[in-house]
């Protein structure tokens, strides 16, 4: 069975793109967290728990929301058939540092539970799963460099060995200096003439690094 990319979303440089088209952008320079909140208030604004999330989870949340907009997973698959696989480099380091500030001084030792719960990067997966009721396999991998080949291989294993039929797959990365996210909606299809993009290393690289991808009639095998 060949796996196809049905849709994808990229959030980077104060812009949100879906399937290569700009959905939202800010022409002003701003910190990631400000941009995320601006996008949320403008485009989503119906999930108050968003504000409790740390920045990494907010980035994953808005990327998944944009990806799945108008694409209800429930229509095609059960909650248990839907998986999520994310790669990340910096773990939850920015939140870890904020949490550390609440315990650094022995005379002002007040560990924050609200920060502590986000000192695990896979919590961002939890936030996306809760919102979208995803109950299939969920995995987070941390690596220094983006390994598209491993990402493809891991997702393929979930489809072939774990009974998954749909998967949100990609990269969500945030550090003090920058942020970027790239999530694809991956589905299986045995029709090799399907006009959606084949889910492989070459296409992932092309889409994410060139910000280009034509979902109509472009197949790279």
């Amino acid at each position: 069975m060949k796996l196809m990319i049905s849709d994808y979303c990229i959030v980077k440089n104060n812009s949100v793109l879906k399937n290569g088209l700009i959905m939202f952008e800010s022409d002003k320079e701003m910190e990631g967290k400000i941009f995320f909140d601006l996008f949320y208030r403008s485009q989503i604004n119906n999930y108050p728990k968003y504000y409790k999330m740390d920045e990494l989870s907010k980035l994953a949340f808005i990327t998944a929301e944009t990806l799945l907009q108008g694409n209800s997973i429930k229509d095609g698959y059960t909650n248990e058939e839907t998986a999520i696989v994310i790669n990340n480099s910096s773990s939850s380091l920015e939140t870890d540092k904020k949490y550390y500030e609440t315990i650094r001084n022995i005379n002002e030792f007040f560990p924050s539970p609200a920060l502590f719960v986000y000192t695990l990067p896979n919590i961002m997966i939890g936030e996306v799963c809760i919102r979208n009721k995803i109950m299939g396999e969920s995995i987070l991998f941390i690596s220094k460099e983006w390994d598209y080949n491993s990402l493809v291989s891991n997702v393929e294993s979930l489809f072939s060995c774990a009974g998954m039929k749909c998967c949100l797959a990609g990269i969500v990365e945030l550090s003090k200096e920058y942020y970027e996210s790239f999530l694809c909606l991956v589905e299986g299809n045995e029709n090799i003439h399907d006009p959606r993009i084949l889910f492989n290393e070459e296409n992932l690289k092309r889409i994410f690094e060139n910000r280009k991808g034509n979902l109509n009639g472009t197949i790279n095998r």
Partner: protein
Amino acid sequence: MGQLIDELRQEIVRSFKLEQLNWQEIDPEAPLFNEGLGLDSIDALELLVILEKKYGLKILPAEDGKQILSSVRSIAEYITKRRVEGN
């Protein structure tokens, strides 16, 4: 007590990032958990940290915590009571 209630309401909005709310909209009598503001167990722990950090108080005995944290007013009453007792 009124000033303390206002202070607590502002602290709750700030600490729990209830950005969709104006602090004045928080009903001091309304339940904080399950209904009303719908705070969760992590928020309860955060409230305990706020009580200790800002007001120097630990809830004793711990079993009283559920009742004390049930509303903004009950928290304010507890803080006031402990202040009178000199704790």
